[in-house]
């Protein structure tokens, strides 16, 4: 109980600070829209083709834009040495991690939900056909992205080159989650039913989330304290 309450306190704190400064949200959202524009120049796709590549396109946008949010997650605690005060407080590393992950998750979901209509308009694609299935995929894959991004943000927080380091480490590890997310999203936006292959992808996505959430919760105290 204390654990969850502390996580929630951290999450609310992070969200409040972020909504006041908006540094990560603004950068990430404008970056997402810029990539969406760039892709449309690069491929000049018809709406039929777009449907087929929509999953890949959207998840590349989400992963790139998300990195800007995740980068800041632990780095923002370095100003004024706040990270030390948090670790010294009776909050466990795992609770701190969970709080930060929750706030990152909500910010990423918000950015994704704002990017989707932009994608629909620019690419002339109706993406709301299987809205709730799409939301489920979005939530699952975004949690995977968040967990990996947040824990690696803690891992790289004291590095000089963390802005360069984080994406290089995060994207390869994310591939087992991104791959099924891309396939599922493409299928859902194209209006196809979920085949056995896609269900296997869904299982992989869920297994990914469980394994890496457990690893992150178990190891973050070691990362932060030693």
């Amino acid at each position, binding site marked *: 109980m204390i654990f969850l309450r502390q996580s929630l306190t951290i999450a609310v704190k992070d969200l409040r600070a972020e909504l006041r400064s908006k540094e990560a949200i603004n950068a990430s959202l404008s970056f997402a829209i810029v990539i969406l524009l760039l892709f449309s120049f690069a491929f000049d796709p018809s709406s039929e083709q777009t449907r087929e590549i929509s999953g890949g396109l959207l998840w590349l946008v989400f992963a790139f834009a998300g990195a800007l949010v995740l980068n800041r997650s632990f780095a923002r605690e370095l100003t004024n040495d706040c990270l030390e005060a948090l670790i010294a407080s009776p909050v466990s590393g795992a609770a701190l991690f969970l709080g930060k992950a929750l706030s990152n998750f909500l910010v990423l979901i918000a950015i994704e939900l704002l990017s989707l209509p932009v994608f629909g308009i620019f690419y002339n694609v109706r993406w709301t056909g299987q809205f709730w299935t799409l939301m489920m995929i979005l939530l699952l894959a975004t949690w995977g992205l968040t967990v990996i991004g947040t824990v690696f943000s803690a891992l790289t927080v004291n*590095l000089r080159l963390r802005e360069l380091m984080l994406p*290089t*480490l995060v994207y390869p*590890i994310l591939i087992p989650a991104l791959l099924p997310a891309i396939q599922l999203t493409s299928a859902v936006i194209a209006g196809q039913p979920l085949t056995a292959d896609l269900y296997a992808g869904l299982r992989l996505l869920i297994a990914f989330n469980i394994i890496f959430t457990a*690893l992150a919760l178990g*190891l973050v105290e070691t990362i932060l304290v*030693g």
Partner: protein
Amino acid sequence: MIGLCVIAAALLARNLNVILLHLPDEASQGAIYRIFYFHLPAAMTAGACAFVALAASILYLATKNFRYDSIAVSVTEVGLAFGAMVLATGMIWARIIWGIWWTWDARLTSMLIVWLMYAGYLMLRRAIDEPTARARNAAVLSIFIAPGVYITWKSIEWWRTQHPGPVLSIRGGGGMAPGMESAAYWNLLALGLIAVVLVMVRMQQETYQRRLDALRREAHVL
């Protein structure tokens, strides 16, 4: 260590002799199949390196003994070298048999990804100066990479891949003539020994490096 080195070299020479001069061509693939004698043992060696890297990383976090950190970084580097050998030999084989250098199938892709992740491990190590923090963070990263290694290993069973399935009889393959299979094991022994020698050299270097670092820090507080 020099003894091991000599044995490994002699063994490799013997194997090369057997593989190149004594074994017959394979029925359907012709001469190129011989690359298999390096591809598979290198893959097994790289896999063993990944396994040892995981074990050493966990042991480092449990004991904080730098010996395990030295083991972890050494086997990771050697594993990367053998992994590069796996990818290169695989690509050459694919060019001859499939007619293409590369295809994005589950085995090839996951192998490449894992290779890149371990390269990231070395990058992370390079970015941290303080040995204790470096050892700790690298160990955590190595544990995060391990599920990817498992996926790579199992990928030929989980997905329909173009990569050939298991061939050795110990994994239920049984697609090889007895004389051909034993040559694979002999070369596994040779490559495995080379890996052990390389790991020992690297571990020695790590130990010296840490001593140097300690002396430098000592000098700074004087």
